[in-house]
């Protein structure tokens, strides 16, 4: 088994490759980021796939997003942070990523004073910048944030509606704004999180092989060894069947033109 990194366009390059170039023989899979459905919805240039036509194989579980600040900063709550006497620097990989879009919507609709520094190659680079005190704010998947928060490097302040163990008590972003457009956009951004970490095969993959892969993924997620590895890595695995992934993806695409227009204003893809 080979894991091949293919960077660019907040997962769009990897998704394009698997959709258009990879042989549909059941030997090349995409570890998809469901945010690509939003890229398709708002017609991002460079999207060369139709998320409804991937052979979705199931997901290893939902994962929320958590916004954190550097733990040496004095703000203990989102409200305190909102009243900061200066702009706080948010480190992000780029538009389209959770690291970027989650704080962006808090800035636009919940009064957070954020200044964005985009272009970090990976979360690990943002964390280095936090340790150097160049960056104040960082958002990422809960599973990514958890060990960093436990080390005391960052303090979690806000989460998305999809919860994750250890972060249940944090305020949900949608409750921090009274703006209906803001609430709607935050809600739509939650939909990919509920799908979590899906795997997909290219369109045209023979049905029997897709079925084998779906069955293997379902069984693997009940495997005690994988569960033990997950516990060690502090990752919660839960099986989300392929039909639910497909349904969730389809729901993301069913937005009114008005909502799509608002999304285009605020949500970009790049990096």
């Amino acid at each position, binding site marked *: 088994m080979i*894991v091949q990194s293919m960077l660019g366009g907040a997962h769009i390059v990897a998704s394009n*490759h698997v959709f258009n170039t990879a042989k549909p023989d059941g030997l090349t899979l995409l570890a998809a980021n469901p945010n690509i459905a939003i890229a398709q919805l708002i017609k991002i240039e460079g999207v060369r796939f139709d998320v409804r036509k991937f052979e979705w194989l199931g997901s290893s579980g939902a994962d929320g997003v958590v916004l954190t600040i550097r733990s040496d900063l004095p703000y203990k709550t989102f409200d305190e942070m909102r009243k900061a006497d200066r702009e706080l620097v948010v480190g992000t990989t780029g538009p389209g990523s959770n690291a970027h879009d989650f704080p962006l919507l808090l800035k636009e609709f919940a009064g957070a004073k954020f200044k964005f520094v985009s272009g970090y190659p990976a979360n690990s680079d943002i964390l280095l910048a936090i340790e150097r005190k160049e960056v104040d704010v960082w958002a990422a998947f809960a599973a990514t944030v958890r060990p960093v928060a436990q080390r005391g490097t960052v303090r979690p302040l806000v989460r998305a509606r999809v919860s994750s163990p250890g972060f249940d008590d944090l305020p949900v972003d949608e409750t921090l704004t009274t703006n209906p457009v803001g609430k709607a956009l935050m809600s739509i951004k939650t939909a990919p999180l509920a799908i979590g970490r899906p795997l997909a095969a290219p369109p045209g993959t023979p049905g029997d092989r897709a079925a084998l892969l779906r069955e293997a993924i379902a069984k693997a997620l009940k495997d005690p060894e*994988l569960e033990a590895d997950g516990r060690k890595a502090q990752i919660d695995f839960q099986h989300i069947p392929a039909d639910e992934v497909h349904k969730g993806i389809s729901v993301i695409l069913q937005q009114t033109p008005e909502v799509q227009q608002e999304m285009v204003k605020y949500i970009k893809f790049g990096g």
Partner: protein
Amino acid sequence: MKRNRIIGILMGLAIMPFLLACAWAQAPFYEGKTITIVIGTSSGAASSPQGSSQITSANTSPENQR
């Protein structure tokens, strides 16, 4: 991002034995084959962005089935 890659690796390694077990009952399509999981993130700052990591390419023998 690194954790996404870890998840990819864990999932990939975990599905192989079950894939083989399932496949064996029908047709041994996956015997001796390598599955590539494409992921849109890097393994971290210090790594080559285009780098790939060969975890195992030879664990598809019948002895490794569970």
